[in-house]
């Protein structure tokens, strides 16, 4: 967390988190492709899927936040 600047908005934080989840997905997927034991391969694929789930969940939050930001701008500009 120390690398995250205070200036980053919640949207930036979510975008960075999604990027990291995708990196983790790639990492585990690559690990699965080089794993020799079937049990190891299965575990890495499972972990990759978990990371993909995290990315989807964070993307949902990001879409919601960005959508609400647009609406907030419309609301404040209409007064």
């Amino acid at each position: 967390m120390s690398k995250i600047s205070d200036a980053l908005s919640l949207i930036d934080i979510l975008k960075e988190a999604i990027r990291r989840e995708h990196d983790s997905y790639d990492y585990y997927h690559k690990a699965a492709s080089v794993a020799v034991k079937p049990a190891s391969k299965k575990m890495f694929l499972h972990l990759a899927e978990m990371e993909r789930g995290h990315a989807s969940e964070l993307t949902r939050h990001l879409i919601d936040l960005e959508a609400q930001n647009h609406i907030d701008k419309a609301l404040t500009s209409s007064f």
Partner: protein
Amino acid sequence: MAEVTYLEAIKQALDEEMTRDNNVFILGEDVGYYGGAFRVTEGFYEKYGQWRVLDTPLSESGFTGAAIGAALMGMRPVVEMQFADFISCAFDQIVSVAAKNNYRWGGKTPMVIRAPFGGFVHGGAFHSACPETWFFNVPGLKMVAPSDPYDAKGLLKAAIRDDDPVIYFEHKFLYRRIKGEVPEGDYLVPLGKAKVVREGKDISVITYSAMVHTALEAAQALEGEGISLEIVDLRTLLPLDKEGIYASVRKTNRVIILYETPRTGGVGAEVAALISEEMFGHLDGPILRVSAPDTPVPYSPPFEEFYLPKAEDVIKAARKLAAY
């Protein structure tokens, strides 16, 4: 087919219709240089110029009246109400002039009034209303309220080509939250036709706009309990697709009507009355309504959440009806 947001689908429809027909033009508050409060018309001013994308003064009555005049002269104006709540300022022009021209002297008034409506956006009492009920018993008007990008585009194109005044209710909450596949080429969704968005056998949930998604959430949750919901998206509120409604009632024999407006009067009451009159023999239980209460939309987010119909409310009603 490309996947686009609900907002992008509306934008595509406007763009394609303006390219197709030089008589189509847009007018409203901040629709030109600024690109619209919700950015629906962003880039249109640059593309079509100041005479087809008109920034108007803050006078809904004035610019709606101007649109009616243009429509009577053969043009096809698309009026944007910045928020549907402000449509009340143009009430007289819409119900006394636009809606009656055809009845009074055969004057065609082909115009669309885009009305961004609905709650879930923390907009409070002046920026969250669902005013479709106010126009529901006005002969001469048509009203549509799409729930997904495909219908948002197809219904808007059909509305622009229609010879009657059409109020196009677009839900603000769905603008950038809902994505869906939309064909690249020209297509229309006919006015006056409901669609079944989820097949089911136990209970019909008759609904429209953002509430379709609430109904889908409830249907998924109820699957595990063995209660199967059929969801009918009205799409067009005026005229109602009576046969589409009746077909689902014949199938399930139980009905919930789900809508975001205050409970009293309006679309839910009319659908209930129609079913009661025409389909009474098919019913195995009372017609239940799930709606907002009879108050304005509260500003406080927890109050707004309490106020708006939720999947839990539909689930509760469905359990009650299934056990009847």
